[in-house]
């Protein structure tokens, strides 16, 4: 029974991570930037929503406004940082270091404003128990997280394959040079991509803290797990990233049966090493 509950918990965490992975993957496969600062956007979304809720804004509105704020922050990062670095012909390493610096800035700005302590969202609704039968219990917000994140996954699939912007993004991702000469304007597409991904990552970024609380440095481990899922799922594959996030989280939760939770980063990392050794292109490799 404990195992089943852990399995369900794994699904919850996995769906949330899945959305982190999808949004990161969207940026990575289009901009070819390993956007480490995405972890900061994820965390920032939660804090923005927290502040709004604390000022009496309804939860849903707070989530939406956090998404808008994150989209704007993402677009600003592209225009003010990545685009400038690209114009200066910054190497890959330079971009990575800048992104890491940005992550440090965002995290520590949050820590300076809100303190480094864990903050809990007010409001009792999120903690109410939903009984799934057989003694398997989820809190309301956990239940909501699964539904919202699965919808986000479906939404991203539809967006990528059905909408004009989605097709443009995929065209730019597959060949930025060609896209440039065919006037798809990759620079503009890049701004959209990072804005959309930043907004989407707020879904788990806001919902997960309702359950586990907010912490300024809490974004790095989820992002690391999500990038591992993205690589293991095959870079460029939305489904691969999502499914592997769920799989890794389930494995991680089930590992609690045999080892304490402090070591779960070890489990995640072990999955990564296995993939690197045996299938470095991932399970659902697009190319």
């Amino acid at each position, binding site marked *: 029974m404990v195992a089943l509950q852990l399995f369900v918990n794994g699904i919850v965490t996995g769906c949330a991570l899945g959305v982190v992975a999808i949004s990161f993957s969207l940026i*990575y496969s289009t901009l070819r930037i*390993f956007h*480490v600062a995405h972890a900061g956007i994820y965390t920032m979304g939660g804090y923005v929503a927290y502040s709004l809720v604390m000022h009496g804004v309804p939860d849903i509105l707070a989530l939406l406004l956090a998404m808008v704020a994150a989209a704007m922050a993402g677009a600003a990062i592209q225009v003010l*940082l990545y685009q*400038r*670095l690209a114009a*200066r012909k*910054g*190497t*890959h*390493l*330079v*971009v*990575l*270091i*800048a992104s*890491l*610096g*940005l*992550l*440090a*800035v*965002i*995290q*520590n*700005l949050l*820590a*300076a404003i809100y*303190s*480094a302590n864990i903050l809990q969202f007010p409001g009792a609704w999120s903690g109410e128990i939903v009984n799934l039968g057989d003694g398997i219990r989820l809190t309301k917000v956990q239940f909501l997280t699964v539904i919202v994140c699965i919808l986000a996954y479906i939404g991203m699939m539809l967006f990528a394959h059905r909408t004009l912007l989605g097709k443009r993004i995929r065209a730019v991702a597959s060949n930025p040079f060609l896209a440039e000469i065919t006037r798809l304007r990759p620079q503009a597409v890049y701004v959209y991509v990072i804005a959309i991904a930043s907004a989407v990552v707020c879904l788990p970024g806001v919902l997960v803290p309702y359950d586990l609380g907010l912490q*300024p440095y809490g974004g*790095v*481990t989820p992002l*690391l797990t999500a*990038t*591992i899922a993205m*690589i293991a799922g095959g870079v460029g594959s939305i489904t691969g990233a999502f499914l592997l996030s769920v799989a890794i989280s389930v494995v991680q939760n089930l590992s609690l049966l045999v080892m*304490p939770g*402090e*070591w779960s*980063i*070890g489990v*995640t*990392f072990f999955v*990564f*090493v296995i993939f*690197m050794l045996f299938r*470095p292109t991932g399970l659902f490799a697009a190319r």
Partner: protein
Amino acid sequence: MDFLLSYLVLAEIYVLLGLSTNLLVGIVGIFSVSQAAVFGVGAYIVAFFLMNTSVSFLPALAVAAICCVVLNIVVTLPSLRVSGDYFVVTSFGIQLLATAVFTNWTGGTGGANGLPGIPPPDVFGIQLASNAQLALLTSIMAGLGCIAFWLLMRAPFGRLLRAIREDELAVAAAGKNVLRAKVSAAALAGAFAGVSGGLYATFLSFIDPSSFDLDASILLLTMVVVGGARTLAGSILGPFVLLALPQLLSLVEIPTTIAAAARQLVYGLLLIVFMLFRPQGLLGEKL
């Protein structure tokens, strides 16, 4: 006077560590945020020997250096196999894993409380208790490190590494063993980090995981970036500047609760600003 001496000792320890990071990040061009983990392993090993055995400082330092050589080779090996971005994941993963081990392996590391009461170093039977004696030791060590770095960089080995950073394939076409050169660089970086870890543990007589976490790795990267990548002068200047920074910050009225966050915030800002406007740092070459 005593304050200046401890500043000198600490800066010299970080010079060794900066040389290690510069070798990997600047010279070979491998992005790494796990050098603090290797540094920590060196520190814990030396602390273990001095606290629990009758082994004296220099042999303990040698063991730490050898362990860190092996560790850094293992840590860096994935970067030789997989593409650069995957190594970012590896590097983050190893850093987080190391922090988990330092924090949770209470028996070996003292856990989050750290290890107090590490005895001062003894060299050829002499206990180095005063700061002046310690400064002499670290000056000799840092001096040897700088000479080693200088010799390596002016030798064909240094030229080979620079060539590898620019174009691995062309180096292979010239008949060189790229893998062996990179492994050698990783081994050297490990030795530097291990020695500086041992010096750090005995100088502070207290170590805890916070000195070897992701933030510490970011600080290290900032030292190399600000001082200047790929040059000896840059590796020396960086630590002296960055370690003076907290003193400067203390002149500004900042509540102590957010002092740590403010410091890391500045490191992050420095990374971004230097990447945007001066990727060669103060005394370095272009990254």
